[in-house]
């Protein structure tokens, strides 16, 4: 399927939004404006963008601890996101969740999750829920290569396949689980092969090629919506920064600068930009102005977050029970 | 349990002692047998040993004060124990207000009647073990758990134990200090209805004293229960009136000479002795001198013997809010007037503050009862047993008389003499009264005996 130029520009805009947002967090975190932990998505933008573009607003996603990219791609707004990261009461979670628990039920975002593998059963349940309610909603479940070893991965894929649930299991294989490389945490290289064990299709795709991701994801979504069951999509990708902000020298304890450099050369955004400009040189300016606009939006988000208040103490006791 | 430290018996004849030096300070640890203070009696100094091991928690008597033997001068407690309240009131009572207390009871300096349900504190040292509800009730009732016997499991103080203690205090849990209780018990007063002025409405001794005063104030329709003193007076007066056949004699005595005499000597007297003699002082002295010449008036009937007392100790009746007390001025015949005045004023003061000693009451041989400050001309008095005579004094009033046909006025008082006819006949009584009249009307000569 040949994608229209407008669509590609959309992809660009989305990826850049994620990239520039995350870049800004690097700076804000370093200056102490973001308390707690930050796990940044820089380098993996194509996966979230490509997958979420296939989803409707009423479809669901479950995300991970490294979830800023997923939630932005699914429709989360920058202002409440920034406010949540700052811990302000106007954040998505009233300041009570933070980076790892950002959620927006209205946008179908069933939460980033602080537990590795925690989202898999929940996504399975969301898919099941659609089946029970007889809607054609689908659920995209993001998880990493390391979580594919967790019990929940196996239980979830088993259940989803058994009951033909409308779930797309998207494995972002960035070849590391914190500091342990894939070679050291599982005997296989292609996680997609595990799909056979659960009698579902397993597809491998270049996670840095947004167009390729989109194509694979579209097929999986179509399959799910048709009630044919789940798909395991393995996106080969890489995170440029350390596991978390504060991981020394972007993970130099467990990976080499050369490796990082090599992957940076495969930057998904550069790849798309180059393609667009190559096809139409005039787009250069347009893309630049898109960048500028995004930065402005981010500035506004920061200002917004700064201007908002922290929750009051008694709010600590609220929202525990219905 | 707390141990009292007393001035020990220091000899068969020794009646008082003085602490010359405390060898331990308040708060010091002390062993049984260790020297605790040095006492002087009859010019002999002795070191006294501690009766117990513990902590000298409270010293009650300072150095260089003379007190009767067996006076409680300190309290020793076990570690962690609190000093029982009765020692902390600071209100040390000497002697007794009752006159029929056995004379061989040494006047203790501290009231001992007041320990409520004297239950020994459970043998274990350290903090008192009581259940929370028991503690709360004790606190509310102002009850010291140290006095509550624990009968719960393991000897713990349970709620019921405190409830029982509260009930035993009388009143539906009136909370009162031990001294208050003691006074109330002694006076036969119920603590119910006594308003407490202490912490959390606790009834203090002064509250009971006030209540006693209020209670005895007669009012229409009021029923006043007879307190102990009243009952004693009642009993003794009946005893006297209905066993001793009283005969009464009256004489008007010209008071002008005595009044003038007094007026004359008072300024110098006061200057020299720092005392003001009252008319009663002259009466006491005059009566004593009259008794010297009429010794039967100083007698007591014992079985079939008329015992004439060796000393002339004249009692003066002192009115108290709730009754009457009659301390005796010792050796009134021999004492100089200044000494009589001194004795009289001291005894009267102490009578009013309840600090008389038993001996001071019991030694009396004759009584003077004066209502001179009232508008009463004369009255009959009941003899104070075991005495044999009593002199009543009416008010001093203006009286007209004839002096060689001229009508003049002079000050006159009617004196009454009641005597026990078993011992004293009319002639003796009349003679006494006549002699007394002569003495009082001739003060210049009479009081030459100074």
């Amino acid at each position: 399927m040949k994608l229209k130029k407008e669509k590609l520009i959309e992809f660009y805009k989305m990826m850049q939004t994620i990239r520039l947002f995350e870049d800004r967090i690097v700076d804000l975190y370093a200056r102490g404006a973001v308390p707690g932990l930050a796990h940044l998505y820089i380098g993996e933008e194509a996966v979230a963008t490509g997958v979420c573009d296939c989803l409707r607003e009423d479809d669901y996603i479950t995300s991970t601890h490294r979830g800023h990219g997923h939630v932005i791609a699914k429709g989360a707004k920058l202002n409440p996101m920034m406010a949540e990261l700052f811990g302000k009461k106007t954040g998505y979670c009233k300041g009570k969740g933070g980076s790892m628990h950002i959620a927006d039920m209205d946008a179908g975002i069933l939460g980033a999750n602080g537990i590795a593998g925690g989202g898999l059963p929940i996504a399975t349940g969301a898919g099941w829920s659609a089946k029970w309610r007889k809607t054609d909603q689908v659920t995209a479940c993001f998880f990493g290569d390391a979580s594919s070893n967790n019990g929940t991965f196996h239980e979830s894929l088993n259940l989803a396949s058994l009951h033909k649930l409308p779930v797309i299991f998207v494995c972002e294989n960035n070849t590391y689980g914190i500091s342990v490389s894939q070679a050291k945490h599982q005997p296989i290289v292609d996680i997609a092969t595990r799909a056979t064990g659960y009698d579902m299709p397993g597809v491998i795709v270049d996670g840095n090629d947004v167009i390729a991701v989109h194509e694979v994801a579209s097929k999986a979504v179509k399959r799910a919506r048709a009630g044919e069951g789940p798909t395991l999509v393995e996106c080969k990708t890489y995170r440029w920064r350390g596991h978390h902000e504060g991981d020394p020298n972007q993970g130099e304890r467990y990976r080499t600068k050369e490796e990082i450099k090599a992957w940076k050369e495969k930057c998904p955004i550069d790849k798309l930009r180059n393609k667009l400009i190559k096809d139409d040189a005039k787009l250069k300016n347009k893309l630049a102005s898109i960048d500028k606009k995004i930065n402005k939006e981010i500035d506004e988000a920061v200002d917004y977050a700064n201007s908002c208040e922290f929750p009051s103490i008694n709010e600590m006791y609220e929202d525990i029970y219905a | 349990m707390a141990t009292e430290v007393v001035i020990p018996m220091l000899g068969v004849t020794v009646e008082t002692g003085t602490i010359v030096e405390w060898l331990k300070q308040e708060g010091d640890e002390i062993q049984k047998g260790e020297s605790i203070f040095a006492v002087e009696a009859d010019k002999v100094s002795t070191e006294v040993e501690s009766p117990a091991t513990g902590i000298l928690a409270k010293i009650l008597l300072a150095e260089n004060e003379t007190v009767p033997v067996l006076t409680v001068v300190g309290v020793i407690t076990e570690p962690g124990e609190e000093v029982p309240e009765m020692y902390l009131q600071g209100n040390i009572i000497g002697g007794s207000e009752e006159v029929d207390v056995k004379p061989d009871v040494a006047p203790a300096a501290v009231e001992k009647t007041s320990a409520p349900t004297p239950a020994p504190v459970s043998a274990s040292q350290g903090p008192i073990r009581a259940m929370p509800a028991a503690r709360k009730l004790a606190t509310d009732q102002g009850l010291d758990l140290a006095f509550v016997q624990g009968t719960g499991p393991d000897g713990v103080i349970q709620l019921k134990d405190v409830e029982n203690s509260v009930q035993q205090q009388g009143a539906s849990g009136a909370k009162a200090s031990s001294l208050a209780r003691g006074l109330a018990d002694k006076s036969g007063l119920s603590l119910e209805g006594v308003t407490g002025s202490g912490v959390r409405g606790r009834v203090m001794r002064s509250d009971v004293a006030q209540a006693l005063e209020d209670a005895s104030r007669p009012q229409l329709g009021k029923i006043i229960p007879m307190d102990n003193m009243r009952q004693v007076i009642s009993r003794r007066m009946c005893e006297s009136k209905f066993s001793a056949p009283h005969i009464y004699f009256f004489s008007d005595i010209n008071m002008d000479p005595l009044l003038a005499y007094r007026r004359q000597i008072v300024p110098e007297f006061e200057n020299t002795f720092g005392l003001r003699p009252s008319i009663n002082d002259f009466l006491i002295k005059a009566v004593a001198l009259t008794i010297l010449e009429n010794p039967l008036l100083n007698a007591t009937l014992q079985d079939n013997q008329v015992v004439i007392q060796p000393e002339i100790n004249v009692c003066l009746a002192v009115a108290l809010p709730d009754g009457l007390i009659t301390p005796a001025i010792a050796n009134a015949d021999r004492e100089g007037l200044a000494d009589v005045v001194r004795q009289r004023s001291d005894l009267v003061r102490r009578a009013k503050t309840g600090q008389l000693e038993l001996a001071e009451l019991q030694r009396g041989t004759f009584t003077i009862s004066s209502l001179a400050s009232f508008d009463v001309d004369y009255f009959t008095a009941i003899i104070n047993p075991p005495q044999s005579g009593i002199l009543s004094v009416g008010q001093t009033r203006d009286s007209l008389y004839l002096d060689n046909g001229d009508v003049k006025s002079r000050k006159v008082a009617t004196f009454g003499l009641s005597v026990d006819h078993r011992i004293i006949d009319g002639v003796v009584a009349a003679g006494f009264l006549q002699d007394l009249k002569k003495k009082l009307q001739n003060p210049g000569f009479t009081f030459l005996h100074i």
Partner: protein
Amino acid sequence: MREITYYEALNEALRSCMQEDERVVLLGEDIGSYGGIFQVTKGLLAEFGTERVVDTPISEAGFVGASIGAALTGMRPVAEIMFIDFTTACMDMIINQMAKMRYMFGGKGKVPMVLRVNIGAGRGTAAQHSQSFHSLFMHIPGLVVVTPSTPYDAKGLLIEAIKDDNPVIFVEHKRLYMSKGDVPEESYRIPFGKADIKREGKDVTVVATHALVVEALAAAEELSKKGIEVEVVDPMTLTPLDKETILNSVKKTGRLLVADEDHKTCGVGAEISAIVAEECIEYLKSPILRNCSPDTPVPFSPPLEKCFMFGKERLTESINTLMTYQ
């Protein structure tokens, strides 16, 4: 009124809720054709079909997590864990996801699901199938913990649990499944956070859960003949806990015995004792006693298991001890 068993009462509750609301679905191991290990879901597969009554694989984390995801997205699942012991296999889902989503998502994560479990030793099922650690769930903020002791309570509380928008840990009791009691035929709800005074008395307060309620009532009956009047308080729900009823009872009697089958250390008894000591200690005439399971795994050998368990006799002994304090 007719008498039915505790498990039949639960069955009725499930049935009526499923009839009323198609969002109610059941997941669990062997709940379908087998009817559930204790027959609680008997007949439901036949009535509602395989879609709504799901026999799951042995994947506690998977199907409890799926229940959470379904609850977040409009369903009202009732998941069954065969024995409370197996909740360990899905503790992350219970403690980190189910209990916390509402709070973490700023009040927007609604998880209206019920997780049914059961406790109680006595069948020789040994250490990993006989535990009663419901206190663990009382300890976690965000979870509702329900502890029915009679068939009547079981039906009303389960209906309430299914209709409640909070995540509920519904703790049933193995030895009570066959117990009988009067139960209305119609649907009814028993509100959470309201303790039930199962017997009034002025001398001793016994706060008891599950099967110990029955034991406490039996002990109370006997002691009444000796002039000791025992008040039996059934909390009904451990979270929310009806503190007021418990405290008022202790203020009345001045004596407290807590009887619960969880271990003594850090168990339900520990919490209730602490609450009483904190809030009405001055009313206590006696120490607080706890009759709880000993701090050991459940032994297999019958005489040992018998010793591990306790009932009317031990309660009576404790009550008598409390009465030695007057």
